[in-house]
């Protein structure tokens, strides 16, 4: 099969995407596929057309790749691609939208409030901050709505720290959210579609929740961008040491979220296990999680006995089924 690996792009996660793309390319070649690597830019459509791939493997993170834009384009020019379609990408990329959907569906997600710049500039949203702080408590988390990695995530420990935390988050997106901080353990559940039956005329995909991964930060206060992509900065435990029922509950939640957001192929759902209460909270879903050597999806697949090449192969085969 001829596969176009789309990587790079101009999002802030470009470097991570290049590493993901390189890993995927290697795997595809080991699997005997012909690969064309495309560093996504203004020539994308022309390059994909010229390459005439059977399928595009999207290894982009952040803007364009994860927000549905590239999927929309590939759909328009009739090139099958891996992973979720535009609508699911949009729902995942916008944390605020995803959290609203989860809240409405009764899936536990930390209490939050979201505003865009206009709300502050034109609606005097700042006057509401005191109430929000009172309801969320301190520390509270401030996040850009649309950033896939931990870039721009700030923790405000007091009222005084809120404006500059908001300002920082607004550096990455025109919309931000303030969220209750959950003190606890950082968990991730990756979900992978697997075919129910290869003999059926119309094979149906059945999502499979992979073993839970726990990320244990070593040096930093919080699980940050730097730690997330570097060997040695964060310890990953997979499968996470959790009571069986709790692990099953985390996996169940991940599958519910995966279905709710309409994901396909694969995705990674990030959760917190709250200290004390033992409650699970869903933070966000990544439509295209990393494929780097320290990424959680390959680790989780590995723990489930699915090697990297097989993982890539399964994701690839799930693509033309759409």
């Amino acid at each position, binding site marked *: 099969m001829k596969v176009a690996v789309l990587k790079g792009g101009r999002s802030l996660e*470009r*470097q991570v995407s290049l590493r993901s793309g390189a890993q995927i390319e290697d*795997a595809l070649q080991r699997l005997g596929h012909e690969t064309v690597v495309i560093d996504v830019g203004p020539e994308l459509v022309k390059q994909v057309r010229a390459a005439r791939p059977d399928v595009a493997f999207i290894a982009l993170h952040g803007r364009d790749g994860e927000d549905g834009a590239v999927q929309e384009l590939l759909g328009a020019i009739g090139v099958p691609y891996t992973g979720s379609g535009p609508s699911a990408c949009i729902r995942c990329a916008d944390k605020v939208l995803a959290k609203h959907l989860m809240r409405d569906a009764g899936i536990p997600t930390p209490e939050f409030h979201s505003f865009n710049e206009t709300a502050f500039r034109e609606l*005097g949203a700042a006057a509401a901050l005191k109430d929000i702080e009172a309801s969320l408590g301190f520390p509270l988390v401030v996040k850009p709505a649309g950033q896939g990695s931990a870039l721009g995530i700030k923790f405000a420990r007091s009222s005084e720290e809120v404006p500059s935390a908001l*300002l920082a988050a607004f*550096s*990455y997106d025109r919309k931000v959210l303030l969220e209750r901080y959950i003190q606890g353990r950082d968990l991730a559940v990756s979900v992978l579609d697997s075919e129910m039956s290869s003999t059926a005329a119309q094979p149906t995909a059945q999502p499979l929740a992979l073993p839970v991964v726990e990320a244990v930060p070593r040096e930093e206060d919080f699980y940050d961008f*730097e730690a997330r992509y570097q060997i040695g900065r964060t310890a990953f435990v997979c499968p996470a040491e959790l009571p069986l029922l709790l692990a099953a509950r985390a996996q169940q939640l991940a599958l519910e979220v995966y279905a709710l957001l309409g994901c396909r192929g694969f995705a990674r759902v990030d959760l917190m296990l709250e200290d004390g209460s033992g409650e699970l909270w869903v933070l966000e879903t990544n439509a295209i999680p990393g494929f780097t050597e320290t990424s959680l999806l390959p*680790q989780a697949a590995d723990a489930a006995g699915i090697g990297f090449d097989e993982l890539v192969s399964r994701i690839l085969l799930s693509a033309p089924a759409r």
Partner: protein
Amino acid sequence: MDDGGRRARPAAHELARYESLFAARTHGMRSSAMREMMALTERPEVISLAGGLPDTSTFPPELYAQLMAHVAADSTARALQYGPTGGMAVVMEGIVEVMAAEGTMVDLEDIIVTTGGQQVIDLVCKTLIDPGDVIVAEAPTYPGAVPTFGAYEADVVQIEMDDEGMPIDALEAALDELQAQGRRPKFIYTIPNFQNPGGVTMSLERRRQLVELARERELLVLEDNPYGLLRYEGEALPTLYSLDASSAGRGGASDLVIYLGTFSKILSPGVRLGWAVAPRPVLEKLNLGKQGADLCSSSVTQLFVAAYLREQDWMGYIHTLRDLYRRRRDTMLDALEEHFGEHSRWTKPQGGLFIWATLPEYIDTTDLLARALESEDVAFVPGRAAYMDGRGASSMRLNFAGIREEDIREGIRRIGKVVGEQVGLFGTLTESPPPPASPPSATSSASGAPPASPPAAVPPAEHPSKPKPLADVVELPQRRRARGR
């Protein structure tokens, strides 16, 4: 890993195996969000004021061709061969001349030729620093030294600069506090001329005091001087090396200053040639360290540089660079005045490559860079890169030397636009009008320093007679005259 294939991918569970192989010091080697973002500055549409680059396009191509042809004709076999670890004598002779141009007399025997000035920093750490050893540096300090210090697991104490460089009383206080803990720094790292990134120059008095203090306390000083010859105005000041050597009457050699020089800024960073002048016992260790690192620096480029220094008007080329960079500096200062004025302060360097600008403390320049790249296609170095301890968050380093004037103007305009937006937004977030920029006066010394509190060892410099803080306005008589015309 078992199949040994080049493309073999480590399975996830094998990562732990790699991790157990990494040396403990690699934990100090940090990748960072900032570095991830810096990769984006390579996009062609981005105006990057982030580089540390001189402008090599000013070097005449025909001269380069002529010199290389000369090297080929005269010494092909030598150029293609290993050379002595300490460097070729022909290039050392040139180094002696270059240093003499700054009034520093050195002996050929005291020089080691290195692969860029960066190698000197690495070799000095390699030979002097055990994990946990103390290095005293300026705050902010050269961002390129930060990972080197980190890799050798040094404990770096940074002394906040004002507009005369490192305050010696603050340095003394820091040394006293270290002494009370039974610790003694292995060396003091300073860039006395047009400091990178601060843009400030250490005053003559401070230089004398520093040398005096180092002698009293028997401390080594690493004097990093890449830009000394790139002075655009004002009088040249003596190097720490020469101050120590002459006052001690040691026949021209200092026994406490390790001098770092480089051809990167006065000729080319591409030749990767620098040098150190060091006390003999240190020099011998540096030499041993270099053997292990790369045996010798490139013979090709040493012969090229030697021929250039011997046959060409290299001082003339430095004059060309000075004229060019002076204009670019002035362009950047004017642009800053126009687009940054209200919210920010910046240094006005008398030479070198960089201006250090400090924004209101509520702006984090790492985040600002994300927005600047995303919405305005412009880049700078966030101030945190120049600190080991997370300070510097509201500052940025701006390179003017390697950028065309129209790009300087446009780049500063774009950054100014983003800063203006953030200032306005902050006003709405706090339900208050944007706070005015700190006035450039001695009374604002507390806010003149980068925002986080200085290390406990450093007393606040609040004496009214003291020099103004680093980011405050430094007088520029020449430019005033020019404007008055």
